[in-house]
């Protein structure tokens, strides 16, 4: 099978989410990558070095600069004439583009696969991860999004693939990118952080969240996450949210502070290697999944922990 993987990037560098998608694609067959963007030749060079990649398609055009799905999806669909499966990381970008590709190809997408059971058989979470479905596709082409935490990352070096320029149809200009407000942080990104410190509603307000959570995260060089309740209450912006409708993470260590452990939140972090929970309620559901739990007042515990580490 010949696969085409959508490379996630910001025109300057390749994002890690690409690497686990490459691993999934390699399980199906030959791996080709697509770098669509503007001024992104450097990303294509980076992509060509990923271990196991056969070819990199580079579509360098202003129409693809901001990953507008109206422009990228027709390009992907045209390249699918020569490929059997399209795989995108299950990031907001992949989720934006892949279903549009699927509809153009008249195939049913298989969302957020966690496992590959056969050439056309995959496992995926349903009901916020409360059940796992095994599905088999009868479509002539496969369109798949890949849950990053479920597959190891392919090695970022060792490959030597050829880069080939491609062009394709773009949209009709009915959509326009106006701008973005991207969080700038010195901390590791949530989806690639080795350690994550996450706070919940118990943190009271934005100021307290900052005072309690950030010093511990800085000490551990950790990414900072939050529960939906903390995001909805405005303590931190939406990109901090860990959970079924936020980010799915699986770090080495996940430290949940003042998070009760709603199903929705657990769905986003229960694949973490070690879970540490600090909560004043000893019956909180978070303790049912935590490897190490400490019951008590987080406002006393967390500063003490930060000081002693």
């Amino acid at each position, binding site marked *: 099978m010949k696969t085409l993987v959508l490379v996630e990037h910001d025109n300057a560098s390749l994002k890690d989410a690409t690497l686990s998608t490459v691993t999934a694609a390699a399980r199906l067959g030959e791996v080709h990558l697509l770098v669509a963007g503007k001024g992104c030749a450097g990303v294509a060079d980076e992509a060509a070095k990923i271990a196991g990649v056969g070819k990199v398609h580079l579509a360098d055009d202003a129409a693809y600069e901001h990953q507008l799905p109206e422009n990228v999806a027709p390009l992907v669909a045209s390249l699918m004439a020569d490929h059997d499966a399209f795989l995108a990381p299950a990031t907001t970008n992949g989720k934006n*583009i892949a279903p549009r590709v699927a*509809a153009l190809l008249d195939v049913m997408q298989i969302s957020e696969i966690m496992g590959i059971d056969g050439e056309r058989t995959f496992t995926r979470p349903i*009901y916020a991860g409360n*059940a796992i479905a095994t599905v088999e596709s009868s*479509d002539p082409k496969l369109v798949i999004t890949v849950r990053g935490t479920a597959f190891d990352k392919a090695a970022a070096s060792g490959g030597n693939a050829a880069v080939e320029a491609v062009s394709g149809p773009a949209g009709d200009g*009915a959509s326009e990118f106006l701008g*973005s407000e991207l969080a700038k942080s010195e901390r590791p990104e949530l989806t690639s952080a080795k350690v994550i410190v996450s706070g919940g509603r118990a943190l009271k307000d934005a100021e307290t969240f900052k005072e309690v959570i950030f010093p511990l995260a800085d000490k551990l060089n950790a990414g900072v996450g939050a529960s939906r309740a903390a995001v909805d209450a405005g303590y931190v912006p939406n990109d901090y949210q860990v959970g079924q409708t936020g980010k799915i993470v699986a770090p080495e260590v996940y430290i949940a502070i003042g998070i009760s452990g709603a199903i929705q939140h657990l769905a986003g972090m229960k694949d973490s290697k070690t879970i540490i929970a600090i909560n004043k309620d000893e019956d909180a559901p978070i303790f049912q999944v935590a490897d190490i739990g*400490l019951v008590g007042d987080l406002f006393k515990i967390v500063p003490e*922990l930060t000081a002693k580490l």
Partner: protein
Amino acid sequence: MKILVPVKRVIDYNVKPRVKADGTGVDLANVKMSMNPFDEIAVEEALRLREKGAATEVIAVSIGPAKATETLRTALAMGADRAILVQTDEEVEPLAVAKILKGIADAEAPGLVILGKQAIDDDSNQTGQMLAALMDRPQGTFANEVTVEGNHVTVKREVDGGLETVKLALPAIVTTDLRLNQPRYASLPNIMKAKSKPLDTKTPADYGVDTAPRLKTVKVSEPPVRQAGIKVADVDELVAKMKALGIA
């Protein structure tokens, strides 16, 4: 301008789903069902646009069994003007849903289609994007803020790194994220009034759509259970454990 709002009847978000013992699916017998929460946000947004004068009519549509009428009545009680039920007892995949919605959009010519970014049962996150492709119209997914001005809609989107803003020519498709708005509750008088609002019943065949599934569900199983670990007594013990893990 008309706004079309597709809504799905799903297991209530407060109910913990149970996998059937024979592995064929999730047990929905005698389980409380409600409108998909993201779709509730979509209905609310459509109503607010109508209240601001940006839209004239809000049409709710649901594809599902006869009982999906209840979900449509909820949308009507919230304030939608009329409803369409596309009745089928089969499970309809997002691709076929998108095809049916395209048929309805062709007939109704809405300026906006607003729908939830995903349904909390199959968690596919596909229908809006697929509909946009089939209609060959722009999409604003995971909306955090929606503003209609003239013949454009500006959508602020929740993306992995923060927020992003796109401007789309109408007609356009918008999918809702959690923080777009807080849906209203239907008042008792409005629930009563909803009973007499028009509700048309159609079938997938009326739109010439074949709903035969493309994906076969081989089995549905419980996720692996994570075992609870240990509790430590104090911070010193926690520090020792963290040091043993090599993170401190």
